[in-house]
């Protein structure tokens, strides 16, 4: 293909890139999606634990592409390349991005998440600001995601459940393990309201996609029925059907070239198989490479018009990177002390736990005071067989083998089931959490790798710990044994946002409220980079919704011939 000019080039084919591509293609525009990973079709997805969960197969080889992670150790910043630590910040690099591998626990952000600073006031050491849009601006798109991408669930009124424009979800909830009887009863006894988890998983067939068949191996795996609401299934396949989408897999974008202060002319891309470089032209460019990589791409696109990085006159590109605060905990339900349900029911595989708690989204505690809290998801421990066995390999002090290992594995696999909770609270944006370019390390294409300085705010751990104690009480009430939780400032690398804040002031933000770069007329960033604060839920529903909103705006811009 030579010098075709597209209406839009989208960099990254994940949740955000897919939503933009879908909308533009449906509106009749010619779009190229450039994706550095390969295409794995639905039929090729299997439940191969070794391939998906124990090797770098759907993410880059860390020797060739990596990050440098800076953490504070004994008061000093220590930088470690991720090929050395193995702490990978890649989350899924194939067509459809990380959305292929998500667990699909979806929540909308609360209206107050859009005005955190006005509502709760400033927090020392945290760069909290209000969003330039309100929940009302995003609500129609949250609703659209439910029907377009597919979210199953059941609406239950709750003081912290955001208002909605439609009465209920388009599909009923996914099937539930009987353990929810015990969980619900335990919560109710404690005065806690358990809610059905909205899930980016189809409970019924939808067009070319089949309903979930409860494979028992969801998070970290691609879905072979099309039930999981990945960008590949829900958006790219329909976008391809329009005939307007050119999907270029194995195409890594190393730079965006600007030919003036306000205009990007082309993307410089490398074919990851042949190593050949090419330029791809378009009327406008949409960056959707997942937050930390989008910021790196802009910084790596510096030239004489943009000496500090593309669209970086504010100096804000890469700043205020956020993850999800919180932590997790677990307890074991044992055959000999199980109540309410039979052990056989508990051990039934495949069905979801499907329960969330929003009771602590905003906390008003007689002792601790009033503060922003978070949400909780309950689930079974991941059912991966190898990793559960690996976790069981130690006895009190030493490695088990022979019959001692057999006894331990029998106990672990056949006499109990572990219930987990995960807490999601704000990762407060702060000056010590950002992405910049590493001064020495380069990727296989010769471009500086991202250097991620990571530090959480003490408030994040305080909030997480408060909620963890409440969740431990739920597990206790359920009769679980060996209960523990772990809350720390270690980021979950799969939930990342920020780095290109949107806002009304070009001096303090990178993007305007439509996620167009303040500095560059034909450049948009559509992934979670725009988020100045992250709310207290996993990001993907918001990512999908905002990308659809941005895409509608882009359609208007293209229609009016503004670029």
């Amino acid at each position, binding site marked *: 293909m030579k010098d075709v000019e597209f209406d839009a080039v989208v960099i990254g084919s994940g949740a955000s890139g897919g939503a933009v591509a879908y909308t533009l293609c449906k509106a009749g525009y010619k779009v190229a999606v450039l994706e550095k990973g390969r295409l794995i079709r639905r039929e090729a997805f299997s439940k191969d634990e070794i391939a998906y*969960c124990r090797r770098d*197969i759907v993410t880059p080889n860390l020797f060739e592409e990596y990050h440098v992670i800076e953490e504070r150790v004994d008061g000093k910043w220590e930088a470690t390349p991720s090929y050395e630590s*193995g702490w990978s910040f890649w989350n899924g690099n194939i067509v459809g991005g990380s959305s292929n591998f998500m667990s699909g626990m979806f929540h909308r952000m609360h209206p107050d998440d859009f005005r955190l600073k006005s509502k709760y006031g400033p927090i020392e050491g945290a760069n909290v600001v209000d969003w330039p849009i309100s929940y009302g601006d995003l609500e129609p798109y949250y609703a659209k995601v439910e029907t377009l991408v597919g979210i199953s669930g059941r609406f239950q009124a709750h003081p912290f459940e955001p208002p909605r424009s439609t009465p209920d979800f388009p599909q009923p909830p996914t099937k539930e393990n009987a353990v929810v009887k015990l969980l619900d009863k335990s919560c109710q006894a404690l005065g806690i309201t358990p809610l059905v988890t909205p899930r980016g998983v189809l409970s019924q067939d939808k067009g070319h996609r089949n309903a979930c068949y409860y494979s028992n191996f969801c998070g970290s795996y691609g879905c072979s029925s099309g039930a999981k609401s990945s960008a590949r299934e829900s958006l790219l396949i329909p976008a391809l059907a329009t005939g307007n989408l050119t999907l270029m897999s194995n195409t890594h974008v190393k730079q965006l070239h600007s030919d003036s202060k306000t205009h990007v002319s082309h993307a410089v891309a490398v074919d990851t198989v042949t190593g050949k470089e090419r330029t791809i032209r378009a009327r406008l460019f949409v960056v959707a490479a997942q937050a930390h990589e989008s910021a790196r791409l802009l910084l790596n696109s510096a030239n004489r018009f943009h000496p500090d990085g593309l669209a970086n006159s504010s100096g804000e590109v890469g700043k205020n990177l956020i993850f999800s605060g919180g932590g997790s905990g677990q307890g074991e339900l044992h055959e000999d002390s199980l109540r309410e349900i039979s052990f056989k029911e508990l051990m039934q595989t495949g069905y979801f736990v499907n329960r969330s708690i929003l009771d602590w989204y905003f906390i008003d505690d007689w002792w601790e005071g009033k503060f922003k809290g978070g949400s909780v998801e309950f689930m079974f421990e991941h059912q991966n067989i190898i990793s559960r066995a690996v976790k069981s390999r130690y006895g009190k002090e030493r490695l088990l083998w022979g019959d001692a290992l057999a006894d331990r594995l029998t106990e672990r696999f056949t006499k109990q089931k572990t219930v987990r909770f995960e807490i999601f609270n704000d990762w407060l944006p702060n000056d010590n959490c950002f992405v910049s370019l590493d001064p020495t390390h380069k990727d296989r294409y010769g471009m500086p790798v991202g250097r991620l300085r990571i530090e959480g705010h003490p408030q994040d751990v305080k909030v997480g710990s408060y909620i963890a104690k409440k969740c431990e009480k739920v597990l206790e009430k359920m009769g679980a044994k060996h209960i523990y939780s772990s809350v720390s400032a270690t980021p979950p690398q*799969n939930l990342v946002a920020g780095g290109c804040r949107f806002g009304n002031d070009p001096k303090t933000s990178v993007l305007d409220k439509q996620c167009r770069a303040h500095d560059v007329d034909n450049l948009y960033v559509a992934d979670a980079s725009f988020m100045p604060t992250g709310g207290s839920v996993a990001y993907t529903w918001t990512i999908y919704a905002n990308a659809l909103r941005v895409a509608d705006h882009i359609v208007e811009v293209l229609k009016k011939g503004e670029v």
Partner: protein
Amino acid sequence: MRVERRAFLSAAGMVGAALCLPQRSDAAAKPDKALEEAVTVIAAVQRHMFPKGGRLPDAETMRMTRFLTETVSHPTYDRDIRVFVIEGAKELMLREKGKLLGYDRDAMEKALRRYETTDYGSNWLSRIMILSLEAMLGDPVYGSNVGEAGWRAVHSFGGQPRPKTRYIQL
């Protein structure tokens, strides 16, 4: 130690019931002489960990050593860990003054527990155990977990669909 740091970080991992923290890899690794020499020691250790007549499928029937050599020689495998697997075997042999392969079950148990008292030895044994568990409980397409005996032993079975090729046809 870096290998340990990697393991620690894996445990800290992602949220969303996700366990998938890929390990680092090496594009150039090939089976070599060093590995061949280490293999007899590793096979003896695996036989001790998963003996015949035990309550778990045994190392030999499950072809655990072949799985291990093929795995650590594959381009997707971490080259540091591969070197560690080889060096750790040599170190064990050295510590036992070359007599390890002639040990009976009791002597082998003592030797391995002695090795385990050192950080290095304990990490190495743990790595051999992890690779052996991968063999026993991975999909049979990788040549081990013969007849799904590993899965049957823990009453847990891999999900559907099962892989038709190793490493998603890499």
